[in-house]
């Protein structure tokens, strides 16, 4: 790896000020579990690295007054997996956080790093988008918030502008009528990247099986994680029957824009989107 200038600022303002000085070649580092391999493989060559881990408070997981939960960008996957605040409200997020990578990598890897690295396969993106999470961004102009769905603009690309950092994600209050699940399809249980990931979140009418609202989010099958909106529309407002679930699977597969790579062919990925969407919808129906 090539040398770079290194900073470890102790406030968010200082970090942003350093970041904003450079037009390019400046990278924040959180866990380093995406950044360092990319440097090793020669995919990136930072001129400046800004370590975010000395900034207090960024790793905290804090319930907000309105019932939402703010998960600091620097919270590690281990923290998220074991946090009762996350487990009780958004089990699918805690569960996948506890299965990504491996124990020693999860102790380093952060929520913010997973999202900002913006791999189409990033495992936290589909469940957090399905839950309608917002990205909290801090930069030279202060704070702004964007829906997490709109945070990703391409592989490795986000809406973050010059000098901007992701400071947290805010997840809306849990809905007692809703169920969610995320299914990661990979060759191995540990140390593997998703071939396809599908998150489904469904709100049921009180005491019934009518689907009032649904979010279906696909990972690893498009340049960014995507909502399958036609599939969502196909099940909204009616009981979640086997036929409707099959139709949603078909429409989700149509929404996918997968590629061929070492993990799977585009054809296989599309087929698996249909399978996993059905599986996810059955599972939220049964667990109801």
């Amino acid at each position: 790896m090539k040398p770079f200038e290194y900073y470890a600022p102790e406030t968010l303002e200082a970090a942003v000020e350093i970041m904003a000085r450079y037009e390019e070649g400046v990278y924040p580092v959180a866990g380093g579990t995406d950044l360092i391999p990319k440097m090793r493989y020669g995919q990136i060559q930072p001129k400046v690295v800004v370590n975010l881990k000395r900034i207090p408070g960024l790793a905290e997981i804090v319930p907000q007054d309105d019932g939402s939960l703010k998960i600091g960008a620097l919270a590690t996957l281990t923290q998220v997996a074991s946090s009762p605040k996350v487990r009780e409200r958004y089990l699918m997020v805690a569960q996948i956080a506890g299965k990504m990578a491996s124990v020693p990598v999860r102790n380093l890897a952060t929520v913010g790093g997973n999202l900002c690295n913006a791999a189409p396969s990033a495992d936290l993106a589909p469940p957090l988008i399905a839950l309608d999470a917002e990205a909290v961004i801090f930069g030279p102009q202060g704070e702004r918030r964007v829906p997490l769905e709109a945070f990703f603009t391409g592989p490795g690309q986000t809406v973050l502008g010059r000098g901007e950092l992701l400071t947290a994600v805010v997840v809306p209050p849990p809905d007692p009528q809703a169920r969610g699940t995320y299914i990661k399809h990979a060759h191995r249980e540990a140390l593997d990247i998703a071939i396809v990931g599908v998150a489904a979140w469904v709100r049921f009418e009180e005491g019934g099986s009518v689907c009032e609202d649904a979010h279906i989010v696909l990972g690893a099958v498009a340049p960014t994680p995507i909502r399958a909106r036609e599939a969502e529309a196909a099940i909204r407002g009616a009981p979640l029957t086997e036929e409707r679930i099959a139709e949603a699977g078909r429409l989700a597969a149509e929404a996918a824009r997968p590629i061929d790579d070492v993990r799977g062919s585009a054809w296989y990925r599309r087929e698996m989107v249909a399978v996993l969407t059905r599986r996810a919808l059955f599972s939220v129906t049964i667990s109801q």
Partner: protein
Amino acid sequence: MNAKKYPLRLHVNGETYELEVKPQRTLLEVLRNELELTGTNEGCATGDCGACTVLLDGVPVTSCLVFALDAHERQITTIEGLGTTEALHPLQRAFVERGAIQCGYCTPGLIMSAYALLQQNPQPTEAEVRHFIAGNLCRCTGYTKVVEAVLAAAEVSEQ
């Protein structure tokens, strides 16, 4: 580019080291090359194999994915901090006695992972051991003996 070095204070196995390192050096590189603690191995340098596992502030991490400067003022435990050749740590003894070491390349990382597991969960089930060490790859043993060794060490510590 600049070859500037940065001051670094590391606390490793109870000793404090004052160093000057290049910013791109990983904790793994500094442990091996500067401190000559060569028990910690490099397998892949990209987080996949676990051969470089050490404890950082008490939790296991892949030291190839940590900039050395990020470990400034933090506590590190390596395999050299567990036992000595004369007085092996119960985990080390169990690995030897149970045939959980063949070429030995993965062993320091595996033992550091197992050590971390037993600290947080002194009586793990076999499934818990297997899940916890899933980040430590071993080309030789097939893991069965490794799991047996960890469970045996857990029993010894219980007595």
